[in-house]
């Protein structure tokens, strides 16, 4: 983080061929597709995994503390965290991204982004962050069952690294301490606590959909319990072959990568503005997680210059979606 660039510098640098990252040529992988493809061999479906959410959180934190992004955009992200996180639910985001961001851009012209425009900008950004994550991590996978195992091992790795960041790197030194059953029990209890936090389920009552919703919720619940057992096993008693295949060989995560170090510092509460350009450029040849963060951060920077009025809609789409 030795090089400090601002918004104008970013505009110049990001147009130089060869300097930018692999944003061009993104596969048209939708955030929902990776999870839909992931079915465990025994029929259980992994609906979603936590790694893309963690990456979205990291990207948003990087964008908020960046000196490339404008303050109103930073505020939009900070004040609409849930909307940002849920952005991955959007299908065909390429079609909607400009439409979702234009109200925030118009608000900037008049000095005020209204709450709905800010919410939509955060939501659109969340879609871009999820897209960055899923494209980098799951775009080249082959088999559905393989994908689910990959997701679980990714999640466990990310959770461990984020836990370490919050505890000064001191915990998890003895992962064999709890049993697999203990960990499974803990994860099931987390599920119950989440149900308490959301208070009651809100059923789908549109156009006679309730009956099917009831069935789907029950099926999901039945699948989720054994799925958590797989998480517990990967946490407490990881399979060395899977660790090598899913984490080490593809270099999924490297805590020494500059952009990851920065993300973990921000997660742990670093409040100082940071510049990320060197970290972003370096990430191109670093771990998958670092590349996903760089992709997401770049997208946030592009969104910010669009909202600030520095680029038009055509350029927005070119920078986000073209080779």
């Amino acid at each position, binding site marked *: 983080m030795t090089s400090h660039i601002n918004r104008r510098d970013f505009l110049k640098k990001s147009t130089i061929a060869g300097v930018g990252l692999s944003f061009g040529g993104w596969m048209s992988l939708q955030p929902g597709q990776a999870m839909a493809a992931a079915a465990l061999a025994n029929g259980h479906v992994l609906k979603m995994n936590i790694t893309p959410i963690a990456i979205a959180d990291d990207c948003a934190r990087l964008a908020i503390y960046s000196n490339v992004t404008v303050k109103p955009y930073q505020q939009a992200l900070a004040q609409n965290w849930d909307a940002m996180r849920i952005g991955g639910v959007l299908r065909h985001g390429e079609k909607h991204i400009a439409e979702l961001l234009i109200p925030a851009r118009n608000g900037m012209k008049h000095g005020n982004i209204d709450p709905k425009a800010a919410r939509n900008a955060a939501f659109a950004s969340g879609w871009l962050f999820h897209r960055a994550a899923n494209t980098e991590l799951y775009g080249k996978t082959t088999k559905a069952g393989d994908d689910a195992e990959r997701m679980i091992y990714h999640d466990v790795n990310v959770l461990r690294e984020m836990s370490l960041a919050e505890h000064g790197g001191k915990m998890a030194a003895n992962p064999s301490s709890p049993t697999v059953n203990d960990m499974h029990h803990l994860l099931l209890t987390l599920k119950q606590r989440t149900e308490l936090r959301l208070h009651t389920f809100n059923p789908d009552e549109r156009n006679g959909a309730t009956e099917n919703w009831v069935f789907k919720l029950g099926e999901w619940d039945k699948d989720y319990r054994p799925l958590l057992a797989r998480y517990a096993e990967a946490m*407490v008693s990881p399979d060395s072959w899977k660790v090598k295949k899913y984490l080490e060989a593809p270099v999924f995560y490297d805590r020494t990568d500059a952009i990851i170090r920065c993300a973990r510092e921000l997660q742990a509460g670093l409040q100082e503005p940071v510049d990320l350009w060197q970290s972003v450029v370096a990430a191109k040849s670093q771990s998958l997680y670092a590349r996903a963060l760089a992709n997401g951060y770049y997208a946030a920077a592009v969104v910010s210059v669009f909202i600030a009025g520095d680029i038009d809609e055509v350029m927005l789409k070119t920078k986000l979606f073209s080779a």
Partner: protein
Amino acid sequence: MSEYITHRAVYDDSARLALNSPEICDAFKLTLKKHWEIGGLGSVTRGGDRNSVNLLEVCRDNWASRKEGDGTEEKLAFLLGWRCHNTADRMWKPIYRTLQPEHYVEEREGVSDIRIYHDVIVFREVYDHGRLAPLTLAFLDFQMERHPASSAISVKRAEDLFGAMYQRTLLELQSFVQEEMEIDAWLDWVFKKIQPLYVDLTAYTEAYYNPNTDYLRRFIIEPNFYDRSDAIIRLARSIQLGEPDVGIDLQKALQSAKSESQYAQALEWGYRYLKVSSDFFEHKIDEATFSRLSDLDKPHKPKEIMDWINYLKEKARN
């Protein structure tokens, strides 16, 4: 609204009574035994009154020809939990407003204290501080600190990320997600259907470990929220522990529950709703009778209670 633990307990106990009763049809008993946890999901789902008739009819129509995994049994199990949810709502929504009107008059954010205290007492009494399923010992701990696996990860971070995943999954289960529509309209659905994780667990931990004695007096003791000596409660507990007390007559216990603790009344109510559902399922009563006996046309918050709250609001404004 009544709360998660209380909702769940009313289902668990009412369904236990149903399983042990000769008045309840075999189809209900079979589905409860096979799909107890799905009933638990129904017990913490809103909107039951609007969907009960339809769902019961579908399950009844398909029952004889059902196949394993076609969803008939699962939907019926969910419906039984759903009926119990409406019991708890009807029982306690008026009581919350009567005993802690200030929360509703001042339109305070978050969960009212009385709801949390009810849950904490039920956690203690029905689930023996989390020793009895489906709840767990560290359930109300701060970051589950007593749990043997809690030191291996950041519980706070895991809860946050898995919670977000759960939230996203619930949204993905909604049919609108796949539909083509204007993006504005679609987004309106997203933010209408997203389920915020708004209940503060630390308030539960505080109420459990360091209860406010004034709240205990106002919400639990004086209004007789729970009395473990009530016959219906003793019967439910004995079934829960695997040894039904044959000395307690269900009908007598149901009758006496009407003048006993609030929780006993809720169990009588929950059992009654299941009995009415069973009668409808077996064609012993028609739809109109089922609807009337299930109170489907009655609001959970009676008009006189809401009028009183509105009167207090008006008074506070002036």
